[in-house]
């Protein structure tokens, strides 16, 4: 038995270590050794892989890393260790199905399988981006109005009532509550009052999070993100968020985002680190579901070839060995209003739905600019549904993903960042402006032709 309270004990009593030693002598060293031992290899021409034994190797290596490394707690400089039985208990008790949202807007979120023929759950929004308060409401409505979007994860607020919010100050409470008030209002106006949220994005420290554990803001059918820190670390702010939602009864979602080029090494080391993070994240936070977000140290985007390979191999490794409910992020370099974003969404979404994750996005420009809207997320949903309807297998998916990636991979250093939401949408009626709609229609046609999918 291992609850968040035992985890707190471990954070106070586990073995002591300097952070730098944990980064270099534990994570970096072990990831490298395991990649070598299991001969895990990334091939840019096989972004969606068909080799089941490689997926199993990645899983086994990740399990070993989880057992050998544990999680480093930054505040206490101690390692929170789990033994095999605790990790296995975390796997066995992980939900395979979950009802999220309320009433007519509720959905069953489930652990997706490889080449799964079920319709994926679509989570829409410019996850995590700082969105101006004047457009927060219409922008949120633009996602919730889309019938294909099942749940929402939008951005946060950096300005509230005209005041700049500084992290970990009283205004963070107001910003986080305002974010939730506006999301609730948007849900009502869009006619989706029960739609499930992943929210509280304005809560950078724990302050905002504590302030929204109330039916007025977050319902028990909603969720917040609790990150693992890079790599295999946590801190008291994260653990406090878990304690808050555990007692409140809403969902904890582990955000796992190892960096390709960071401590875990290249794409292969990151894949191993991902598995360890999911297993340890579950044992530690008792999260009901998880977010898979590989980061490319140069481009950030999950649509980078190395990142999509990670979504693929990690999704498959988990689906085969430890079926968790996992959302796969769709973060693009390009912004809404550009052509490039459609290729990125196409490749990233096909990868996710064929290899075991539900698409979450589109976080256009990686959340750097609020250049996003409901329309490109509709496209993400349409691609997801089309891929599943056409019974795309991994081999077929790979051909399409490689083809789509070749359209944008050389442009990632200088992407077309598109335009801000109010230039793309009529903000009063919350409908796409004619030019944006026309671009969407023409790109949809182009990508349907390129891929042969009926999008």
């Amino acid at each position, binding site marked *: 038995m291992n609850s968040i309270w035992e985890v707190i004990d471990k954070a106070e009593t586990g073995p002591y270590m300097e952070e730098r030693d944990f980064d270099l002598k534990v994570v970096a060293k072990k990831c490298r050794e395991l990649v070598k031992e299991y001969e895990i290899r990334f091939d840019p021409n096989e972004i969606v892989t068909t080799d089941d034994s490689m997926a199993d190797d990645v899983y086994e290596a990740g399990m070993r890393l989880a057992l050998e490394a544990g999680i480093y707690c930054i505040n206490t400089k101690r390692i929170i260790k789990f033994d095999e039985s605790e990790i296995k208990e975390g796997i066995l008790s992980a939900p395979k199905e979950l009802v999220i949202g309320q009433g007519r807007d509720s959905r069953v979120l489930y652990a997706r399988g490889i080449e799964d023929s079920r319709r994926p759950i679509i989570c829409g929004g410019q996850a995590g981006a700082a969105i101006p308060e004047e457009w927060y409401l219409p922008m949120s409505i633009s996602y919730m109005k889309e019938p294909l979007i099942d749940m929402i994860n939008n951005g946060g607020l950096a300005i509230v009532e005209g005041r700049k919010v*500084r*992290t970990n100050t009283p205004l963070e409470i107001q*910003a986080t509550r305002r974010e939730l008030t506006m999301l609730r209002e948007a849900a009502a106006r869009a006619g989706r009052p029960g739609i499930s949220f992943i929210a509280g994005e304005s809560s*950078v420290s724990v302050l905002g999070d504590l302030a929204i554990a109330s039916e007025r803001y977050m319902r028990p059918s909603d969720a917040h993100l609790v990150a693992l820190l890079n790599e295999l670390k946590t801190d008291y702010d994260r653990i406090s968020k878990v304690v808050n939602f555990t007692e409140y009864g809403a969902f904890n979602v582990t955000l796992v985002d190892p960096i*390709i080029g*960071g401590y875990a090494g290249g794409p292969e080391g990151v894949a191993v680190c991902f598995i360890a993070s999911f297993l340890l994240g579950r044992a530690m936070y008792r999260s009901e579901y998880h977010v898979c977000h590989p980061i490319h*140290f140069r481009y950030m985007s999950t649509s980078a070839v190395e990142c999509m390979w990670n979504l693929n191999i990690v999704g498959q490794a988990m689906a085969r060995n430890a079926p968790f409910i996992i959302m796969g992020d769709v973060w693009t370099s390009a912004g809404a209003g550009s052509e490039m974003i459609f290729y990125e969404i196409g490749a990233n979404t096909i990868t996710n739905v064929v290899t075991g994750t539900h698409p979450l996005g589109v976080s256009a420009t990686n959340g750097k600019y609020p250049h996003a809207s409901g329309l490109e997320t509709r496209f993400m949903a349409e691609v997801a549904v089309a891929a599943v309807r056409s019974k795309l297998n991994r081999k077929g998916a790979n051909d399409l993903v490689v083809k789509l990636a070749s359209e944008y991979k050389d442009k990632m250093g200088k992407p077309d960042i598109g335009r801000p939401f109010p230039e793309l949408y009529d903000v009063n009626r919350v409908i796409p402006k004619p030019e944006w709609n026309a671009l969407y229609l023409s790109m949809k046609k182009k990508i349907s032709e390129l891929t042969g999918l009926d999008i």
Partner: protein
Amino acid sequence: MNHEEILQNLADSVISGDEEKAKDFAKKALEAGIDPLTAINEGLMRGMSQVGDDFSKLKIYLPEVMMAAEAMKAALSILEPAALQKGTGTLKKSKVVIGTITGDIHDIGKNIVAMLLRANGFEVYDLGRDVPIDDLIKKAEEVGADIIAASTLLSTSMPYMEDLISLLKERGLRDKYIVMVGGGPVTREWAASIGADGYGDDGEEAVKVAKELLQRVKGK
């Protein structure tokens, strides 16, 4: 072993992040009568610039760069005192105080910038993450820094960068330091709008800008 071989071994020890080898060849260089500054520039720095190149092409990753920096530091601990003793040329390095600013724990980008600065010969004081602006200024005063560099990935920590510049002005210290800012949501335009001296899209630009500013503002 001739001089060129020793210098090559010094470069290799940095590239492979081998601390022991780096120290060993630093000693060998001195024994062979190589000028310590030559050993630094044509041995260690040559290795480091290779490391920087490989990292930017993702041939190697963060840990390798950190280990290279460690190896370089180890060799420098032998070569620098020797250079000082010999009084050859100036060893004075430009000093940078860097940190991820208040409220923000995103430190990977900052670590990369700090490392690349170090690899390019700067003396770097890295104060870590969630660093109050006060501490940045205090440290800069204490070590006589040339540059204060602040990093953030959070829009809600960007105002602290504005606070940093106001506080420097209020204390009459603004002209004493070059202020550089960077990190995810920070843009070139915004950096200019708050009156920062420099900005960098990535680690390489950060180094380039730091060097240019030093020359322009401080004549170094």
